[in-house]
Structure formats: C-alpha cells, structure tokens
C-alpha cells in the first residue's frame, strides 16, 4: 500500500539533515512552498545549500532561513529583488556563498540530474564571466559551456492537489520549478492545498507522476 500523505509539516520535513542541499520551488512569490520552508526553519536544520530562483523577500521563506543563518551557500539566478534584504545583508557580510547560475541553466542542470545525465553543453553564458573556470567547447561554430547536473538531497515543492500516490497537479504559473525539482532530489516533499482520492486526477493531466514524490502534506489542515 502506497500512501505518501503525512499528517503534519513537522513530519514532512523530519530527517532533513544539517548540510543538506535543498531545492526550493517558486518564482517570486508564485509557487513558493512557504509552510515547508518554515517547518524546516522550526526544525532547526542548518548549514544548508539552498537552490532557488530568488533569495526570498521580507521575513518569509528563504529570507527567513538567511536571517537565521541557516544557509551556507545559495545557488540562484536572481537573488536580488525588492525586499531581498536578508540575502543582501548576509552576502555583503560574506556569511553566505553565492553561486550565480543563468535561470535556464539552473533549471536544465536540475533536469540533467533528474535524467541521469553527466552534464551538457549550452551556449547560455558561454561568452560571459559565468563560464570562467568551466570547459568551453565550440560546437557548430558556436561557443558552448559545459554545465554539470545539479541534484538535491531534498526538494520542497508546492502543488495544488495530490493523491496518496503523490501524483500532482499545479495551479497556473505556480507550476514553475516544481516538476523539475521534484524529479531532481533524493527526497521530494510537497505541500498541497487539497488531497483527492486515487483515480480522481485525470491520467492525461497529471503533471508530476508520483514516482518523483516521497511525502505530501496538506497545508491549512486542522
């Protein structure tokens, strides 16, 4: 019997270890698994490498992890935004290491990990200083840079609905990094708004099949 539903946010993040690489979904405030990130914060897990598109804003989610000095390293495409105060503070003080990755390369590197690839060549960034120290190869007359797969120990993802097998559907643009991150981590933890019965999700419409999902928790549950 497969039942990936867990009863609480604490159960959802249980066992995530200090030093883990954590993929955190979301783009701006869309699709961010806020409650899961705060559960991780409450659990006290620290020394994290966080892979995420933005570095949080204000006092919530990744910004809160940065404020509480739980993040050793951040792999990110756009850490700077209105309200990314805690990232800027920690970065300026040299307390957090930043690996800046073009957004498409960030996504593609996680997909490469999900697909078991050893890496790929892309023209994105090949002419830029982000290619420094990396292998560059001319393919078809164009410079390409070699990019390595980027795997997570954990992925924290937000979706709309799940069944007990962990099949997921998302809502509008909140889908963003979810499907790729879910497939790229050893342990994938998902927060959803709603549980549905097995068989209720149309098989043509499942976006993330349950094979990629380990734990699902409903947020806002009593």
């Amino acid at each position, binding site marked *: 019997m497969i039942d990936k539903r867990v009863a609480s946010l604490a159960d959802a993040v249980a066992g995530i270890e200090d030093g883990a690489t954590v993929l955190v979904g979301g783009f701006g405030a869309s699709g961010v698994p806020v409650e899961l990130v705060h559960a991780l914060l409450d659990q006290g897990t620290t020394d994290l490498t966080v892979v995420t598109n933005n570095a949080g804003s204000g006092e919530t989610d990744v910004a809160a992890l940065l404020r509480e000095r739980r993040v050793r390293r951040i792999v990110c495409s756009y850490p*700077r935004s209105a309200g990314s105060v805690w990232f800027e503070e920690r970065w300026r003080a040299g307390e957090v290491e930043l690996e*800046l990755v073009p957004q498409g390369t960030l996504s593609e590197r996680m997909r490469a990990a999900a697909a078991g690839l050893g890496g790929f060549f892309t023209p994105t960034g090949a002419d830029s200083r982000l290619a420094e120290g990396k292998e560059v190869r001319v393919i078809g007359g164009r410079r390409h840079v070699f990019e390595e797969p980027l795997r997570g120990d954990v992925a924290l993802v937000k979706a709309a609905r799940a069944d007990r097998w962990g099949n997921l559907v998302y809502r509008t643009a909140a889908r963003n*990094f979810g499907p790729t991150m879910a497939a790229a981590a050893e342990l994938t933890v998902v927060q959803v708004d709603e549980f549905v019965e097995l068989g209720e999700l149309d098989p043509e419409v499942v976006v993330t099949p349950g094979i990629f999902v380990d734990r699902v928790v409903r947020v806002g549950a009593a």
Partner: protein
Amino acid sequence: MSPGVRLEMRDVARRVARDVPDGAYVNLGIGLPTLVADCVGHDKEVVYHSENGILGMGPAPAPGEEDPELINAGKQPVTLVPGGAFFHHTDAFLMMRGGHIDVTVLGAFQVSETGDLANWATLDATHPPAVGGAMDLAVGAKRVLVLTTHTTRAGEPKLVPRCSYPLTAAGVVDRVYTDLAVLDVTPAGFCVREMVAGLTREDLQGATAAQLSFADDLGVLAP
C-alpha cells in the same frame, strides 16, 4: 543636439511594436521592453511568452482580480488569453534557449558594433549580482531587439566598439531602437536605418562611441 529632439521611450516602444510580425511568439524583457505589448496593434495576433511558464500572457488584470501565482517575469500580476497554456520552467526555458521564440526585446547597458550585449551586470561589485533569464534569451531567441536610451543618464554612449560592462552574450543583437535612432547590427558594424527628425548625422555620431554607417534609404524615426 537640440533639446527635445529625443523621443519618449514609450514612442520608441511603439516603433518596436511595428516590427513585431503578426503571429510571432514574443518574449519581452522586464522594464522598458514591457511597454511594447501595449503598442502592438489589434490587427496582429501576437503570443507572449513568460519565462515562468506561460504562453499567451495577457494584460494586467483589473484591480481586485489579481491571482498572486499568475505573474510575469517582472513579478507583476498578469492574465492568460484564450489559447494560452501553462508549463514548467524547464520547458519555458527550452522555448527560450532552443530558438522557439521569434522575437525578444531586451534592455541594455551597452551594445557593441559586433552585436555583443551587456545587460545583466554593472561594474559595481558592492551590489550582489543577478542574471535571471537574460543570457538564455539573448542566446536563444531567433531575433534579438534592444530597446534602450541612446546614452546613459550621464550622457555616456551605450553603443560602443566593445562592451566594457560584463557580457551577456556575444554577437546576438540584430537591431537597436533608441530615443535617437534605429540601427541594425551588420557585418560592417552599426548601420543607421532611421533617425529622429531634427538630428544631424554628426549629432548622432557624437552621441555614439561606435562608428556609424547610414542606410541609403535612411528614414525618419517617428512614433
């Protein structure tokens, strides 16, 4: 040059919009380029792409109708038009990186005469860097248009022989639209296609660090 000769950037955006073909798949960079969508005529059906997984992005919703998850690359609320679709980030960037976007309009700090683009980082190292989808779009779109003021606020030329700012991508820019001129990047460098009225060739060259050539059928850049 005489003051007031420069166009408003909104009018330059209107000029860009005239070059967006009917039926095109278009990605507009954040900031100034988003003005272009408002200027594309209703006689054209253009499909807007957003890097966060949207095709068929529509205008801003009415106040109170915002969906906090349905945002554009600049994190502003948007809508979806009939025929639109959602997909995940990796597919969104496959479209950008794989040559599926017909036209992108980007801002720039500098453009070089060989089409190099610098639009992601300044030389200010006290500011944390951020790149987003700038490099993916610059290398991947079929046609890269740049919409920018001709000079910086301090009056320094943005069209240069060689970029001094960190490169986004080399040799990618097809055409530049400024408040003074429309210029193509050609194998021989910048070629001016249109200039605003009241400007001399010498004025324009004076505001440009790169060497300019002028099209035989040089036109007037008008809103």
